[in-house]
Every structure is written in structure tokens, then in C-alpha cells.
């Protein structure tokens, strides 16, 4: 059930974000630059105001290039590109990875705990830490789409729930690869698992049972199904393996609610097979003909 205040809540958040100038600083990082890509450290301001950090990689050559935006993740470490991704991905795509508030390099003054982040301020939508993190993700997409090196017709937003939320709240995403983990029917699904991060919700409600209704109300303003109609980008939903909590069948309502073309990939319980599927999906939609050349060595056919 989408709360009546959903639109108002997020519009107010975007309005508040709009009142915080980004004040971007970009500095080269020679250690991580290669003969095929230059890496930059990016500092910019988000809601709060709060200063964030990201890694921007730009291919050598004449653009514009397709872009991959790695939206803030649920982990303390900020990666340049995800662990296990071939560094050569940076030769074909502009990549931008952003640390949301609380992650390393964006952990002053707020240092997030893992576990702990998912329930920080969860009693009230206005104070919930993810209001700021989603705003951070929006700010990152705003930054990326404004870069002259980026082809605005080929911008892929990659991540978990926050990636989909960013694509819903601002323009610029032409494609989305989302792996729901945190905000799909959370209040309903958390009691059915003992695994983190959703176990954070169980821990919290075990300690503070009287707050269950306020937690449910906050989570309703973050539910992916409420964001989905606003997403017009072509979307790949990475579901978990059949029979598990967030499998393709469970995510059916999300699929139906998304506003653009959707593909759901059921996990094959292999990071190789699932990762290869996503890499090829992105390359096909971004017009990259030689994806084999930018795969990790052990994923290549020969």
C-alpha cells in the first residue's frame, strides 16, 4: 500500500536537496589511472548539507561514452568498480561510484555501522538515514548526467534498491540494473529471514516492539513498488534464486509496477553466470560490440 504522503515526502526531499549546491571538486588520482582510463576523486555536497565522495573514471579517447553509475551500496567500503569487474570495463564506459553518507570516504561526521545502518532513525521518515542516502544517490546521478564525457542516451544505474529509487526520483537513467535487498515489502518479509541485513529489522523490533507501527510506516515510504511506476528506464531486475525470499515470483508485483520495459533474471546461484548475464545485458543495450574483451579473464569463452 503506497502511503498517501509518498509523493509529498519525496518531493520535499528533492526540494531540500535542490537547496544544497553540489559544489563539485574533481581531482585526478594517478595511482589508479591507466593508459585506457583516468580516475578522479570527486567531492560534492548532498542533502544536509553533507559532503560525499565518489570515484569517476573516464575512458581515454573521444567520447561521449556510455556510463555506469554505481549507486551507494549497503557496505562500508566504496569500490572504484565492483570487486571482480574487469578493470578494462573502464576503457568502454565512464564509471562513477558514489559513497553515500556513512560509507568510507563519506564517513565524516557520520560513520555508519554495518549492521546498524538499516534501522538508523527508522522510527520517523523525516529522520531515517536512508532519506539522506537516497538523496545522495540522486545527487550522484545529477552529477553524472551533466558530464560532457557521458552519452545521455546510455546511462546505466547499477546497485540494489537505492539504484532504482534514484532512477525514479530524477531524470537521466536510461537503464537500471537493480538487485532488491532492503526495501521490497520489508516489514512483511523480514520476519521470514534470520539473515542480515533484514535481520536488523527483526533485531530492532525485538528490542522495541512498541515501535512496530512507526517502523512499518517509514518502510512504506521506501518500498520499491511505490517508486516503480516512476521508473521509465529499461530495467533488469536481478532476483534471487527460485524458492528464496526475493526470487522472481516474489518480485512479481515489482515487475508489474515498473513503468518501463523489464527483464527479471532469476539467480543461477553462481556469481559467474549472474554476473556474466548482467555484463552482457548492459553491453548489448549500450552498443558495446566487443563485450568479451572487457570481461574478467576467467569469464571469457576462450
Amino acid at each position, binding site marked *: 500500500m503506497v502511503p498517501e504522503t509518498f509523493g509529498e515526502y519525496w518531493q520535499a526531499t528533492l526540494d531540500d536537496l535542490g537547496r544544497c549546491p553540489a559544489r563539485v571538486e574533481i581531482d585526478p588520482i*594517478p*595511482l*589508479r589511472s*591507466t593508459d585506457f582510463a583516468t580516475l578522479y576523486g570527486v567531492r560534492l555536497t548532498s542533502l544536509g548539507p553533507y559532503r560525499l565522495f565518489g570515484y569517476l573514471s573516464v575512458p581515454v579517447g573521444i567520447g561521449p561514452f556510455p556510463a555506469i553509475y554505481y549507486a551507494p551500496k549497503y*557496505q*562500508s*567500503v*566504496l*569500490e*572504484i*568498480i565492483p*570487486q*571482480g*569487474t*574487469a*578493470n*578494462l570495463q573502464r576503457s568502454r564506459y565512464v564509471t562513477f561510484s558514489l559513497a553515500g553518507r556513512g560509507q*568510507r*570516504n563519506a564517513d565524516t561526521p557520520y560513520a555508519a*555501522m*554495518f*549492521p546498524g545502518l538499516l534501522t538508523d532513525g527508522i522510527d520517523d521518515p523525516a529522520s531515517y538515514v536512508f532519506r539522506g542516502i537516497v538523496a545522495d544517490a540522486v545527487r550522484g546521478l545529477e552529477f553524472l548526467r551533466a558530464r560532457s564525457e557521458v552519452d545521455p542516451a546510455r546511462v546505466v544505474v547499477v546497485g540494489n534498491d537505492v539504484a532504482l529509487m534514484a532512477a525514479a526520483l530524477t531524470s537521466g537513467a536510461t537503464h537500471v540494473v537493480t538487485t532488491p535487498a532492503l526495501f521490497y515489502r520489508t516489514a512483511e518479509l523480514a520476519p521470514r529471514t*534470520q*539473515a*542480515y541485513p533484514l*535481520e536488523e529489522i527483526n*533485531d*530492532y523490533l*525485538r*528490542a522495541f516492539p512498541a515501535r512496530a507501527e512507526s517502523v512499518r510506516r517509514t518502510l512504506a515510504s521506501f518500498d520499491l513498488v511505490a517508486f516503480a511506476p516512476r521508473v521509465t528506464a529499461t530495467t533488469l531486475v536481478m532476483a534471487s*534464486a527460485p524458492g528464496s525470499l526475493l526470487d522472481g515470483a516474489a518480485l512479481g508485483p515489482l515487475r508489474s509496477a515498473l513503468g518501463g520495459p523489464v527483464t527479471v533474471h532469476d539467480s543461477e*546461484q*553462481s*556469481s*559467474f*553466470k549472474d*554476473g556474466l548475464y548482467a555484463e552482457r545485458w548492459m553491453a548489448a543495450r549500450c552498443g558495446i560490440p566487443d563485450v568479451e574483451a572487457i570481461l*574478467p*579473464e*576467467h*569469464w*571469457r*569463452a*576462450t
Partner: protein
Amino acid sequence: MTVSAEYRSKVRKPDDFDAFWADVLRQAATVPLAPEIVPDPLRSSEDVETFQVFYTSLEHVRIAAWYCRPARRAERMPAILLSPGYQMDPPIPKEWARKGYVALSVAPRGKLRSLGQFNPGYPNLLTHNIVDRHTYAYRGFYVDTWRGIDFLLSRPEVDASQIGVTGSSQGGGLTITTAAMRPEVRAAAAGAPYLCGFMDAIELTHTYPYEEINDYLRRHPDRRPEVEETLAYFDGISFADAISCPIIVNIGLQDNVVPPETGYALFDRIGSRDKQLYPYDGHGHEAGRFRHTAVVDRFFARHLQGAEIR
């Protein structure tokens, strides 16, 4: 890509390897463990008690860990030490407690909750002081993990004769070094072991985190001899011959982070006569975890609980 099971590492164990680590351990032994165990009611439940643990390690760095044990159990129990992956945040090991173990999940220096005195960051940990084995990041990082065994030995609820160690990726590499350096370890399960065959891996794959070393050598090609020299002291393959406990190793043949070739090379060097390799074709860095978890459960049940699980 075809992976050769006959791949052999270029790693050569330094002649003074044992003396180097004996000296490190002598230094560590002068530092009192000073264990502290703080109940964490928020993370505890009917069936599992959770604690935040702190102890002191080499150079007096304070190390954090999560500690879980089955609730309302008076008898001594077998214990599992869990080591974290390179960039993961150490998990709260509730599921091990639910299986009947006392479990310690260590956050070595630089990890969240253990970064007040040492924080080279990610990326960077892998190359922090990489030209000097006496100050290389993993010198303390390894000892922090090994000292987790000392913490377990300090606990009255732990059966000191039934301690196992496990982890995947970096946790797999730390499993190798811990099993080699701590004779109290009775069984070890290492998944996709990272930190084994560093200099082989940076040629076999170009993905982070190993790519940090390639970044460093591209910028400082003249320092390659010192880098190679340092890493030989920290390579899991150099430790492997000292492992004598039962051990299982699982690798993914399409691993894009830890080249499977290094897993074969490591396995060849493991000294234990009771060792088993599980190569999973069609699998990446998760190394067949979805199937292999049951293998690990059976392995520890047999060696630490004296039980057979079907």
C-alpha cells in the same frame, strides 16, 4: 577459459620465513590480550547470545569482533573462528551459534570497528607499506586474526580441543595462515582463498582487489623486487606446508577475483594428509557456496562435534 589443475605457483618460501614469523609472534606475545566482552542485547535473541568483543594485538592495536554463542548452554562447546573478506564488513555469526558452535567473527585492523589506530582504506590495504615486510599491512592483520584463537582459549565455554577456522576469499586466505600458525586449530575450511599466489594472480586476472598491486607496480616499476620479496613472507602458499589439521578447500573455476589456478597451486602445497579440494565448474568467486555450505557443515560436525550430518 580453460584452467589447468597442474598450475604451479612461482612463490618461493623465503629461507628465513620461520624466523621472520617467530620474531613477529615474540613481539605479539609481549602485548597482553586484555579481552573485553560486552553483551549486545539488540543483536541477541531467544536462541543466540551476541557480544561485542575487543582484544589487543600487535603494536597495541585494539581489535573488535562479534561473538555469538547458543543461549542457555552451560557445557563447553566447539568453536569456530570466522575471518572476513577483503571489503566485506565482518558478519555477526548467529547462524554458527544456531548450529551449536561458539563463534568469533574477527575484524582485523582497518576493518570497521577496528580502524581507530590503523586505517589505510580500501583500496590501499593490499599495498600499504608493501616494500617492507616489517611494516606491511598484513603483518598486523594476520596476527589480529590469529589472536582470535587466544580469545577463544580465554573463554570458559570453549572446548579448547575443538576449534575450527573458516572463511572465504580473504577469509579463505586467513583460514590458511591461521591453520598453519595455530596448532590449536583442529579443522579448517577455506573458500576461494585470496592472499595465496599474489604475484601469480596479478598476471592471471585484472580485477580488484589484486589489481591494486598492478596499479602500484605500474606507478613504481622499480620497486617490483621489494614487492616480490615482501609478498613471499605473506603468501598463503608459503604457509601451506605447515598445515597439519584436516582441511577442505573450495574454488570456483570461473572465479573473477581469485584465479582458480592459485587455488590448485595452494592445495598442492598444503601439508596436511587429510585434505580435500572441491573445484566448482560454472562458478565464480562465490566458489559454489550454495552447494558447498552443506559440505562445510558436515566437515565441521564430523571433526568438531563428533557428529555425522546427512
